[in-house]
């Protein structure tokens, strides 16, 4: 009787041990799989940021002329970097949108509007340590002088930040 009970206990312990072994193997496997999921999500967000560069440059709220690709309207940049841009918080598929004037070269970033300014902060969701991607754009405005109108353009850089998966939205 006692020997039989021992055998049952041995078997129970063995079964529990085997059970826990498989659970640990499963958890290890899931750990690898979910690490891959996180990496995949990050990769998709990176691709989203890169493909968004052209979309953002060409959107009507920033674009200089709908027949010109990769050109930004400086008047629109002034407006979107002010209070008006707050209405677009949930709209952006990226973590941040910034525009720099790259010529002439500058040592310090001077936020616009202002004399000799070189930076427009359009959007920032407040997420720290953002990896950024950029593209060159033309920053233009219409100017009228001596009765004639022309396009006055400068070289600029559009910089967007990669949104972290599950990052909270909101203007920083």
């Amino acid at each position, binding site marked *: 009787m006692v020997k039989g009970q021992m055998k*049952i206990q041995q078997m*129970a312990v063995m*079964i529990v041990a085997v059970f826990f072994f498989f659970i640990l193997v499963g958890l290890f496997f899931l750990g690898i*799989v979910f690490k891959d999921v996180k990496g995949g999500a990050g990769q*998709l967000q990176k691709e989203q940021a890169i493909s968004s560069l*052209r979309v953002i440059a060409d959107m*009507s709220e920033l674009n200089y002329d709908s027949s010109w690709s990769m050109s930004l309207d400086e008047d629109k940049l002034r*407006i979107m970097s002010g209070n008006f841009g707050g209405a677009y918080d949930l709209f952006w*598929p990226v973590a941040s949108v910034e525009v720099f004037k790259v010529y002439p070269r500058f040592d310090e970033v001077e936020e616009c509007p202002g004399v000799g300014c070189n930076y427009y902060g359009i959007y920032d969701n407040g997420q720290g340590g953002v990896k950024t991607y950029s593209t060159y754009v033309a920053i233009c405005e219409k100017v*009228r002088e001596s009765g004639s109108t022309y396009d006055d353009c400068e070289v600029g850089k559009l910089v967007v930040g990669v949104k972290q998966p599950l990052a909270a939205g909101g203007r920083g």
Partner: protein
Amino acid sequence: MKRGQFNFVWLFAIVAGGAILFLAIFGALRFGDTARFQSDTEVAKSIAIITDPLQAGFAEGSFGKISFGQETRINNVCFDDGFGKNDISVATRSGIGKEWNLPGGATSIHNKYIFSSGGSSGFDYYVFSKSFNFPYEVSDMIFFIPDNYCFVNAPYDIVGLDIPNVEVDDCGSGDSVRVCFGSGDDCDVMVYGSCSSGCDSVFDEGVVVKDGVDMKYVGNLMYGAIFSDKGIYDCNVRRLLYRAGKIAEEFVDKTDLMDARNCNTNLKPDLIFWREMVGNASVDDLSSLRTMANVIERKNSREGCGVW
């Protein structure tokens, strides 16, 4: 005694072994579901990304093809509060039980306007885009079409659409959706043009009748009415009009900046009025808004600097 002990050991082993086997099978199935959910969620997110280059931009339009390894249903749920969004999720056909597996996680797309049937399915989706100008460019519209279409009596500008699954006039196979412009036989969708002034074609404005439901349109919204459900169409139109109102608001501020540097414009009062009109408008207001949009467009084109 020994016989009873033997029976109990076997009984115990069978019960415990059965429990472990059940848990293993249950775990494997759950894991399979999770992997499928992950894959479908990734596909939905990828759809949001791969449609970026398909936006028309300054081109007349553009198209591409998305192919899936198995029959796939793209669910499109539209929300129209403010800028609104399209929630896109993907489900694959199930081999057992229910016809379709549960869809993966939805990807919210706030900056695109995706027109499709709510739960359209297929192996291949053709995606094309057209811009919505009202009177300035508001955004590109993206159309998802898994079915074959046949356009009967189509006007000249539609003949040049050049999308592989949209045949024009020469409707060979019988399983395509027949879209008739003005008149035609055996039509699944009817398009009635009603544009009488300031138009290139009578179909620049009108009504699309599908499944007995009327959908009013102007310009390229016609494609949205043809290729999508009424719910998604109405929702996306409200989103587009809201955005048109926001852009008008930006243009009102822009007129002040232009005036300040001697690039004067007289459009400010029109834009203020337009902003109020279009911001809260719906599908039913499209026709009356179009007349006003044409007037503002003409005024802008006559200006030296021009607001857009």
